[in-house]
Every structure is written in C-alpha cells, then in structure tokens.
C-alpha cells in the first residue's frame, strides 16, 4: 500500500531569511513525484514561505536571502529561468483570484502569454484544462461569462484550470479550500486526489484533517524559541496520523499542541 515514487523536488539544508529574521532553518525534504505532500504546522512556522520558495515567489519580497539548495530533478531552482520555473511549477492561492475576464480568457491567459495564438489549439487547451479541473460540465455553455460570476468553489476550480493550462509538473496550493464551504472543500479535495495521478502537488493547510484526507505524505513544521521555522517530521501520512515518531508531532495531530 506504500507507493514508492521518485523524488521530484529536493530541498537540502535550506534556510530562508527576511532581513535578519530566520523564517526557515535547515529544511531537508525530498518531495515525491505524482503524489500529494501536505505541509502542516502552527501559524507562523513558515509553511507558506516554504511553499513560495519552490517557485521562487519570495524573491519578489525585498531584503530576503537564502542558504542551502533547492533542486527539481537534480537541477538547481536558482539556475533556472524564473519564467520557465513558474511554467513548470504552478500555484493556486487561498482566495480564488480569477482575472476579471471571461472563463475562457482566464484559462487561455497562460498559453497566450507563452505565445500560443491558434484558436483551435487554445480551444483544446481550455476544454482539457477545465475538464481536468472538473469544471467543464458546469461552464461549457457559458465560456464567455465572467470568471467572477462563478461561485467560490467554481472560481477556485477555474484557478486550478488556469494553472493546468500551461502544463505544469508541480502545483503548489496555499490553503486552497480555506475560503470555501464544506461541500466545495470536499470537491476540491476530490480534485486534488485526481490531479495527483499526473502532477506533483504540495499543499499548505492549517486544516490537519484535510491533510489526512488528501495527502500521501505529510511534513510537520514547527518553530524554535527564536521563531525560526523548522521541519519536525516528514513521512507517509498514514504513519504521521497513526504513529508519528516525534512527541511534538503526536501533540500537534492530537490537538494537544502548545
């Protein structure tokens, strides 16, 4: 029952600083390919900082620096062209953020930005991406309607379709369901499981139960006394949720933390 997949992203001795403040200290993780890896931990432990490191989004913030290495399939992320990196590593955010454009144009945005102009090809990409995001049947007759006219859950699936349209290999998700109602949340979770067949997914969630439901592997982060985030334990979710190795993990997953 334990799937053995090769690692897609390797994080080695990675530390991250906002100015003098060390937000992440000495993180080592191999993220398995075509699986869901969940990052859990208390607020402020660096989960989102860690996630944004994987597509180098943190570089947009002034006065940050890093130590250590991040690799995707043995190539350093820091040696990669950032546009190419973000094509290969897509991202979905906490609040659904469709562009104020039609459903069609939202999904076609990325492919167009990468130079695709052929209407037939774009049509195909839009349909395929919406199908993969399990939204096609709900919107196929309204592709020219504004993306903002959709419900919250549909908007989030539209954002996932938009991320899929540039054919990424990795999808980062930062609390993708926290702004959604329980039914829309379960629907997103179902979708995440389906996507894991073809994509490597890293999801940050403050909802520990969600991590249990959707992920194959779980990384538990916590904070040192000086508030630097660190990795406490990383392992198969089935193990983290039934017999974690560290007492701190046990305390967190059983709700006895802090």
């Amino acid at each position: 029952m334990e799937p053995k997949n090769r690692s897609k992203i390797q994080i080695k001795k990675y530390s991250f600083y906002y100015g003098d403040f060390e937000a992440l200290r000495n993180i080592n993780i191999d993220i398995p390919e075509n699986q869901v890896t969940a990052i859990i931990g208390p607020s402020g432990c660096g989960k989102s900082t860690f996630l944004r490191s994987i597509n180098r989004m943190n570089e947009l913030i002034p006065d940050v620096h890093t130590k250590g290495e991040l690799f995707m399939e043995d190539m350093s992320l820091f040696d990669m062209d950032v546009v190419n990196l973000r094509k290969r590593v897509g991202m979905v955010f906490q609040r659904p953020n469709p562009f104020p454009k039609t459903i069609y144009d939202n999904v076609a945005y990325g492919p167009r930005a990468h130079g695709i102009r052929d209407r037939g090809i774009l049509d195909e990409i839009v349909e395929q991406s919406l199908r993969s995001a399990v939204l096609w049947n709900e919107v196929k007759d309204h592709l020219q309607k504004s993306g903002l006219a959709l419900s919250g859950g549909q908007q989030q699936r539209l954002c996932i379709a938009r991320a899929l349209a540039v054919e990424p290999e990795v999808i980062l998700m930062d609390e993708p369901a926290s702004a959604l109602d329980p039914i829309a949340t379960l629907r997103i979770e179902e979708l995440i499981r389906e996507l894991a067949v073809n994509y490597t997914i890293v999801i940050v969630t403050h909802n520990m139960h969600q991590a249990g439901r959707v992920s194959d592997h779980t990384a538990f982060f916590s904070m040192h006394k000086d508030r630097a985030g660190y990795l406490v334990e990383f392992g198969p979710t089935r193990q983290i949720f039934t017999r974690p190795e560290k007492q701190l993990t046990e305390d967190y997953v059983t709700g006895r933390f802090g």
Partner: protein
Amino acid sequence: MKRTTLDRNIKTLLDELLVLESMVKEATFKAVDALIQRDMDASRFMYIQDRQINKRRFDLELDCLITIATQQPIAGDLRMLASILEIAGELERMGDYAKGIARVNMMLKEKPLPKASKDLPQMASVTIHMLEQSIQAFLNKDAVSAREIPKQDDEVDRLFNQIYFNLVQEMIAEPGTIDASNHLQWAAHNLERMADRVTNICERTIFAAEGKIIELDSSDDQWDQSG
C-alpha cells in the same frame, strides 16, 4: 458528492475481511479433516498457518485505524469501520479455535479416534456455513439475515450435545478412551464456540446497518435467569 478515498478504503478493507474469512474457513475445514484422517503433517501445518491469519488481522486492523485517522469517517462510515475492526478480531479468534483443533490431533498421537468424532465434520460444516452467511450479511448490511443466522446455532448445539453424549458412552464402556475422548471434546467445544462468534458478527452487522447494539440470543441461555 463522492468520498472517493474513503469509499475505496472501505471497499479494500471489506475485501481484506473476505480474505480473512476464507482463511479461517479453510483452516477450520482442514483442521477437522486432518483430525478425522489422523494426518499429523497437515495438522502441524495448520497449527503454524494460524500465524498468517493473525498477521492478516493485524494488518487489517492497522489499515482500518489509518482510514479512521486520515479520513474522519462519520455515522454509517464510522460504524462500518468500527464493525470491521470487531469482526476481524472475531475471525482471528475463530482461527485460534481451528488451531486448537489441529493441536488436538497432535495431542492424540497414536491413540485411536473416539467413534463420536463422526459428527465433527457435520458440526464444522454447519458452523462454516453460518460464518459464510454472516459475512455475506455484513457485506450487504443485511440486518434481516443477521437476525436469522444465529438461530442455526441450535443445530450446532444439538451436534455438540450428541458428540458429548456419545463420548460419555464411550468412556463408560471403555475407560481406556477417557484421555482421547477428553481431547475430542475439546475439538467439539472449539466448533461450538466458533458458532457463538458468528452471532457476534451478526450483532456487528446490525450495528453497522442500524446503529443499534443488541445482543442476539444464542440457544444456550437456558441458564440465563435474568431475562
């Protein structure tokens, strides 16, 4: 709304439960057969084979706990998983009874088998049939059948009493058979206990289906004055 992972996990667990049930059935059949045939090698093999049943049960238990921990089952799903845990335990104990029957053969050594043993295969057959029906009822969440199946325990008890009576007759007629008769009595007792555990499985089926924990009467409660 689907719960793909949870539904798939429950289905896998039910498949595992079915495998465990067939292992117990086979162990019981073969243990009784080896005893009747006085086949020491087969009994020794079945005795050791019980470890496989125990391992299966522990694996199933762990998978069940993992599903509960990661998928947060509620209501019917939770009752189903709790029942799977219980039934896996019942099956494992039934495997122990089969192992006990294998042991009886080994303990009898060169002693001839008491004649009363002729009813053992029939007793095993009824018990195994009850087990099959009870697991099927559980898979179908069939509370109606679950209430009916334990009634067949009367036949198991009748056969048990018949074996007991015949063994006593043999012991009176031929005191040299006392040792062997005692051992055989033990084998019959194990089958009788297995049938009682089928009743427990049926109780779990009713719990899974209806959410009610009820005690199904087994036939030996002529001694139960409370109710």
